[in-house]
């Protein structure tokens, strides 16, 4: 049987030889499947998998096989209460999407959360997103997060790439639907980075993406951890900040983004030491102004 027919082969399933990027990714398929890949490489692997269906399928099949290892452990009967709790939770949260959305927004942590207007077209995202950037930029200056006029100028110079990046967030509406939530994030304990970001995600499902900018002095690989309202932290993946100081990541979450309000960013070398923290911008005026445009 050739590798092309092997249902769990990590070898290429295409007739053509893999590209260097494919080879790089395949070499990391086994550690990825076991969850042992260093955080800095995980994001790069997923970046490739998004673009390469052949590698995606090969890796997915290896993950599927590897996951079966968990079946070898001693079998223990779960508590009966777990079953009922699950069914109750599913019954309460799974039937009526609109009602669930209302509940979700009702328990959102702050008033600054605003649902995108369903009538907005993808093209019309540009203006509000660009305005959001300007407003956040302004808030940095007002709040002292940017300590000098030179830094403000620096941020303005980054405007063009930043706005271009925000435009790319219009994809978020396609990814997360018309009910997508936007969380503007502001940097705290960021030293002189002036970093900012946006969380965009589904109001009900644990699906969200994070974009960060203004890290021009710190390109590299970062580990991202999200912190929920009750202070619980969970690893959400790894992202690469490019030379423009911009990076994005599809977060691996347990809960919808309304559960989270803080994002911790650390180097992959020292994942326990925050380089900086992004906190949900509780200044609801920003988003209200955005909604009025």
């Amino acid at each position, binding site marked *: 049987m050739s590798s092309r027919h092997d249902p769990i082969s990590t070898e290429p399933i295409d007739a053509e030889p893999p590209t260097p990027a494919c080879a790089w990714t395949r070499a990391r398929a*086994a550690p990825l499947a076991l969850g042992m890949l260093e955080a800095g490489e995980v994001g790069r692997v997923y970046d490739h998998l998004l673009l390469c269906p052949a590698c995606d399928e090969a890796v*997915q099949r290896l993950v599927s096989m590897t996951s079966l*290892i968990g*079946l*070898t452990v001693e079998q223990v*009967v*779960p508590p009966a209460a777990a079953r009922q709790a699950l069914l109750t939770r599913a019954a309460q949260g799974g*039937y009526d999407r609109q009602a669930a959305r209302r509940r979700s927004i009702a328990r959102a942590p702050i008033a600054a959360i605003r649902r995108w207007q369903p009538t907005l077209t993808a093209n019309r995202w540009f203006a509000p997103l660009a305005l959001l950037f300007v407003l956040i930029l302004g808030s940095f200056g007002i709040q002292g997060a940017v300590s000098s006029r030179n830094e403000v100028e620096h941020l303005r110079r980054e405007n063009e790439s930043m706005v271009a990046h925000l435009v790319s967030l219009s994809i978020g509406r396609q990814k997360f639907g018309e009910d997508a939530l936007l969380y503007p994030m502001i940097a705290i304990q960021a030293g002189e980075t002036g970093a900012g970001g946006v969380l965009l995600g589904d109001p009900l*499902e644990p699906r969200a993406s994070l974009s960060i900018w203004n890290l021009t002095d710190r390109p590299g690989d970062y580990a991202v951890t999200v912190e929920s309202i009750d202070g619980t932290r969970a690893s959400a993946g790894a992202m690469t900040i490019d030379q423009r100081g911009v990076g994005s990541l599809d977060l691996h979450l347990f809960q919808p983004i309304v559960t989270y309000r803080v994002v911790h960013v650390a180097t992959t070398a020292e994942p326990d030491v925050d380089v900086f923290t992004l906190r949900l911008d509780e200044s609801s005026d920003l988003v209200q102004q955005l909604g009025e445009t």
Partner: protein
Amino acid sequence: MTEPANDDAGAARRHDAELVARMAVRDAGALTELYDRYARPVYSYLNRVCGDPRTAEELLQEVFFRAWQQAATFDGTRGAFVSWVMSIAHNMAIDEVRRVNRRPRTGTDDPERVLSQIVDRDTPPDEMAWLSDLRRQLRAAVDQIPPPQRAVIELAYFSGLTQREISQRLDIPMGTVKTRTRLGLLRLREHLHPVLGDLFPPSESSCE
């Protein structure tokens, strides 16, 4: 309605896929059936990794709730439900271990012996026949992995250690960790190959 398939892995995979499709349209009965079929192996794994029944119970609910929420994203052509739900459990368990401990967790001082110690030699009386058979063959396959390779796989899969941490833990070069990982999984695949065809349908892109 399709009768539950208990004896054949291929039939079970197809039946599970039907149940997941029903979950995608919010059929709670399908969730109940899948839970009843797989809660025990999922819970057993979570309990083994987390070492805490209460945490395992919480994660068990999270795993199946996530499967419920994301049923529409399940792709039955890429593998069986049991693989999918176990991969969800794996991700959640490793995240939990890393979150709580922030340090290696093995549950033993001799990682090379772990996989041989943890396997269950008894079959639950009400377990589906094909699942019992799969578990038996998994155990046999794991036993065929040389101990040094098995140790690396165990430290990653059950303890949540990264390559670098395993390198430090076993005092071996990173390159050796990578080699052992790859060879160990290749050995596992080799020994599981005869039984995995039913769980992993042939790729569409592999047709000539």
